[in-house]
């Protein structure tokens, strides 16, 4: 059986990636994710065929990943918010060229240089494509070290399955925190040789490109990508429900915020309030149908994010007209306490009682 180890989040991601067969990593230092490149420098280079490059910039890193991915390697890069902005050019290109790869964003406070505290301000950027053009990326939002391990492995599988970039969206706290983890055995890679560029050998030469000058052809390519995104939306949503069975009010939160929400819900156990949690694990595709199903029996939803309200828009898209939606946010790198959120919930319920 695989052993339980106590490991820091950033290192968990790196180790899980290596176990999943990642053989190419490029990245540029930025807090709070520096342990990922450091771990890769130490460990990936020891593995046969493993390449670690400290690139000159985040831009270079993502374009190296593109090359490595085209050449057939499982490839990854990681950064934190400002660096992820720089990677968008390449992420858009990967979507266009249908190249798999994993991009890790350990979010920090922003906009601009912001700070290095945990934050969830990059939700829009991650779930709306982030770069230019008509595309989406799968976005996975782990909330425990165990999920950092499991979802990193899953990210590589999804990237191969749908041939595109997959974003791991966590934050500085998830990256810095140590928690026990058991690494599961990864699935064997399933990626067709035809997609790999190796030189034409004796055969026909291959082209990988996103440039499609004829608008009719480009349109067809856009629709083709869109069909893929629709399929992903229908089949790949993941979420967790916690104490939702008989809840009167549902907190919607992901990642670190969902942990805080669980803590708040536990504190309210004996308060008489029936509070549950809906935690999206895929942020794109957003588990919209699953949330709406909940709205058939719950009408009060409180969205909680470490931002000024971004996932809130997806909740509105899912629930507008079906339920009441409220919001509590702490942007800027604040991680509120479960006690604070519990108070917010209590106040929210008090006001709701007044309404009635």
């Amino acid at each position, binding site marked *: 059986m695989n052993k339980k180890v106590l490991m820091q989040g950033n290192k968990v991601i790196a180790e899980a990636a290596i176990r999943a067969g990642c053989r190419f990593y490029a990245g540029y230092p930025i*807090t709070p994710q520096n342990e990922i490149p450091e771990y890769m420098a130490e460990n990936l280079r020891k593995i046969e065929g493993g390449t670690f490059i400290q690139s000159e910039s985040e831009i270079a890193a993502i374009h190296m990943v593109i090359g490595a991915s085209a050449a057939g390697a499982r490839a990854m890069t990681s950064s934190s918010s400002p660096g992820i902005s720089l990677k968008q050019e390449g992420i858009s290109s990967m979507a266009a060229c249908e190249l798999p790869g994993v991009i890790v964003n350990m979010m920090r406070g922003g906009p601009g240089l912001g700070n290095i505290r945990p934050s969830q301000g990059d939700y829009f950027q991650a779930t709306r494509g982030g770069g230019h053009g008509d595309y989406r990326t799968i976005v996975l939002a782990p909330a425990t070290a165990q999920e950092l391990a499991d979802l990193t492995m899953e990210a590589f599988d999804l990237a191969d399955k749908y041939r595109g970039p997959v974003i791991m969206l966590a934050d500085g706290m998830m990256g*810095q925190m140590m928690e026990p983890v058991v690494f599961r055995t990864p699935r064997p890679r399933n990626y067709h040789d035809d997609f790999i560029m190796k030189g034409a050998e004796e055969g026909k030469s291959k082209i990988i490109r996103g440039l499609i000058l004829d608008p009719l052809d480009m349109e067809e390519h856009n629709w083709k990508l869109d069909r893929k995104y629709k399929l992903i939306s229908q089949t790949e949503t993941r979420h967790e429900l916690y104490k939702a069975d008989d809840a009167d009010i549902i907190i919607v939160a992901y990642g670190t915020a969902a942990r805080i929400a669980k803590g708040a819900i536990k504190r309210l156990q004996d308060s008489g309030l029936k509070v549950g949690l809906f935690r999206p694990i895929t942020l794109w595709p957003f588990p919209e149908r699953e949330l709406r199903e909940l709205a058939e029996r719950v009408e009060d939803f409180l969205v909680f994010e470490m931002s000024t309200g971004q996932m809130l828009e997806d909740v509105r898209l899912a629930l507008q007209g079906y339920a009441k939606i409220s919001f509590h946010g702490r942007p800027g790198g604040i991680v509120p306490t479960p006690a604070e959120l519990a108070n917010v919930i209590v106040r929210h319920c008090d006001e709701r009682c007044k309404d009635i």
Partner: protein
Amino acid sequence: MMIKSIFSGFGGQGVLMMGYVFAHGAMSKGYQVTYLPAYGAEVRGGTANCTVAVADEEIASPIASEPDYVVALNTPSLYTFQNRIAAEGTLFLNSSIINIRPTRQGINVVEIPCGEMAEKIGNPRVSNTVMMGAFIKKTGLFSPDIYMKSLEVVMGGKKKSVMEINRVAFMAGYDFLNI
């Protein structure tokens, strides 16, 4: 049950190590644990701290706004954390180098001259292990055996003599507290 502890001191006093070994020990005892180090700008200027949560249930937040235990190895740590300790919580202080005493009321204070004790044992660098002996005795979460095993794992096959002096240091701290 949910216990949150903060270990704080100068960088180099081994506070991150203390927290890490403690968390590892709690994990091997079967508890849920989280360990969160201060990072980035927080650790500039030579101070370091980490927060360890130990529970028999899922841990929501790894942050301790009201820690049950604070281990302060230097004076700045005492200032920083004395007012955050939960009511009835416990402050462990390194009385060898902290000359002031907390102004905060309603908490327990455990003074351990761990610097002097480590000197006596023959290596000033094990003063954090002395402190952990006292800490483990007071918290009663797990046995000295488990702590020593975790220390061995965390230090990753250090020399026998290093383990031995740490064992002596740990037991000195453990026996120092009569409870």
